[in-house]
């Protein structure tokens, strides 16, 4: 057990992968000497060489497309996309090529490429640096999407992503990069595609993932002061979604609130609300309620506090659920 920031935990996770899998290597913009704009890959090029930690031309489609080709040859590329809003030049390669190579080849070929994307707001940055595009990728069959909310998951999930035989996108909540947490480098938290109940409760289920998990925990603590026992689930995996864990919780609590930073319309929250409404119709005391971003491009930094779900917005949603 040691305490480290999420950034350091990912760095250590990448180091462990590079050490144990000679076919694995990192590729991306500025990840070598600089160590990445968020310093996630700091020191790795010095340790493993430019061959294992490759600075690429500034071309996102090129990064993913060539990674796919290298994976077909049996290599294990771990790509860094510098920012969430810059993944779109690679959207075509990810959705029409990477996600489909297995089914297009009738299962003969696979390209288990890992893509790391720092995502989400709350860092006061300018446009295209704070987006949450996870639903666009979750809608694409053939991809797996996970997102750590804490240092321990961050350490393990990157390694598990590389070990997975399918393409995996790891959305990293960049505003949590500097949050410290305990990391158990000996014992893995298990299946990365399973949700974790991170706070037990009896009156309502609050589902969140990535950057909003600590916010959800804080909201649950605040609700407890008002006498409400709120169970908090860290979804961890966005594709697949562990509906079984959410279902079991809602059958116990009777209420569901789902929170994420991405716009609510067409988002992951809607998917969870709909599925759980089907599965838990007779257990629900209130309609499932979503908390999320507005139907607008990610706003300028000076107003993002109004866009991002915070403790109060989650409490407001819980109040609405309790009002039924």
């Amino acid at each position, binding site marked *: 057990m040691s305490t480290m920031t999420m950034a350091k935990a990912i760095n250590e996770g990448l180091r462990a992968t590079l050490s144990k899998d000679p076919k694995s290597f990192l590729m991306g913009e500025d990840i070598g000497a600089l160590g990445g704009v968020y310093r996630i890959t700091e020191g790795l090029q010095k340790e493993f060489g430019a061959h294992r930690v490759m600075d*690429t031309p500034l071309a996102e489609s090129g990064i*993913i497309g060539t990674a796919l080709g290298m994976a077909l040859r049996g290599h294990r590329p771990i790509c860094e996309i510098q920012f969430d809003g810059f993944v779109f030049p690679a959207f075509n390669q990810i959705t029409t*090529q990477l996600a489909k190579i297995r089914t297009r*080849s009738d299962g003969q070929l696979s390209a288990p490429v890992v893509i790391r994307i720092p995502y989400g707001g709350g860092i006061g940055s300018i446009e295209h640096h704070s987006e949450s595009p996870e639903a666009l990728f979750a809608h694409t069959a053939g991809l797996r999407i996970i997102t750590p909310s804490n240092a321990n998951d961050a350490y393990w999930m990157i390694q598990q992503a590389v070990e997975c035989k399918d393409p995996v996108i790891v959305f990293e909540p960049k505003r949590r990069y500097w949050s410290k947490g305990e990391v158990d480098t000996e014992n893995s938290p298990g299946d990365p595609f399973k949700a974790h109940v991170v706070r037990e409760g009896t009156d309502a289920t609050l589902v969140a993932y990535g950057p909003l998990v600590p916010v959800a925990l804080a909201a649950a603590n605040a609700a407890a002061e008002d006498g409400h026992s709120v169970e908090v689930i860290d979804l961890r995996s966005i594709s697949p979604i562990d509906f079984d864990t959410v279902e079991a919780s809602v059958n116990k609590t009777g209420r569901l609130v789902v929170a994420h930073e991405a716009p609510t319309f067409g988002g992951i929250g809607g998917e969870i609300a709909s599925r759980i409404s089907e599965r838990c119709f007779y257990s629900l005391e209130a309609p499932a309620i979503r908390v999320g971003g507005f139907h607008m491009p990610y706003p300028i930094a000076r107003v993002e506090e109004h866009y991002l779900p915070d403790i109060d917005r989650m409490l407001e949603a819980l109040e609405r659920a309790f009002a039924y």
Partner: protein
Amino acid sequence: MGAAQQADTGTSGSGAQVSPRPQAGNQVGNPQAGNQPPIPAGESAGVLRNTGVGPEEAVQLLDEHGGTHHDATFSPYIDKLDPDVVRGFYRDMATVRRFDTEATALQRQGELAMWVPVIGQEAAQIGSGSAMKKADYAFPTYREHGVALTRGLDLADLLKLFRGITNGGWDPRETNFHLYTLVLAAQTLHAVGYAMGISRDLVADPTTEPAAVVAYFGDGASSEGDVHESMVFAASYDAPVVFFCQNNNWAISVPFEVQSKVPLVNRAAGYGIPGIRVDGNDVLAVYAVTQWALDHARNGHGPVFIEASTYRVGAHTTADDPTKYRMGAEEELWKTRDPLARLETYLRAENLADDAFFEQVKNDGDELAAHVRRVTLALGGADIRHKFATVYAETHPLVAEELAWFENYEASFADVDTENGQGGAA
């Protein structure tokens, strides 16, 4: 413009230097060489065709009259060819043309959803494909039926995609011939990545068999950003890849001039890689140039760009109607440059093949066409369960849940059928 954009010494099989040369420079042995009928400077779809993209200024070893020309760099690649190999080029070109005719007929008869004709481009494909070694790997677009033949595929397998039986149709690992890719230019990046993978394998294990990759694409795809990015990556990492652009002059209905104001080979210099323009209807020149490029790449000298100037005689696909957008005169001109006719003339003039040979090729082609038809018509339906099974490599609960639902749904019809059957009996 020279045929070779960048000097490169000591890498070709002949050891010759590829150097810039004047227009139609060292073409000898044919009084008409360098005096080609110009491509009509007329209007086509409202576009003035002011940048002719015929075989002029391209490497040509065999002209449309069957005459041969010497080229210091590339001729050595064909001078040593066994006549059997040259006859094989003809046989393969004729075979793929016959196959194409049959596939078009199958589409017209409703047996294929669509077909992508290749007639006119046989030399570019048979020449380049034949230059590859077994360990080399080809990344095609969706029209490389000739290359598929050279890689040993059963051509009937190509029709499975177009019949809607599968998205693939063959195992790329058996033939080193990748799946067809319908998103334009996406495969050029995969090709470069695969080539980078070969380089990594060589670093990890020097006993790895050196190999190169050929990335096929067309003049239309050359406008896609992925082609640019693929060349940037290939150049940056000296990837052993040969970019083989078949400039067939038309991107569906849009003429070449809308893709580029200059011959595409000019772009190679901008990436710092050798570029060669070749008469894409001259199978011998295509074979020689591709061999040179593959040697260059395999020997660790990095990528090469080849622009094969050719012409799509037929439609883009069977859904297309070229009479709406291009002139008959242009089509007639290109018919005089037919790749099969010129090789036949050459083979006959050199006494390398006789009537019996051509008769045999024709009969074999008919036999192949019958085989393709037989196999295609016998293809069974597809089972969606197989699609459920191939979305992910590892278990995925959503896929499992939806498959279970589907099986129950399907089974409910079986119950109804059984009940109806019992009802009738009672």
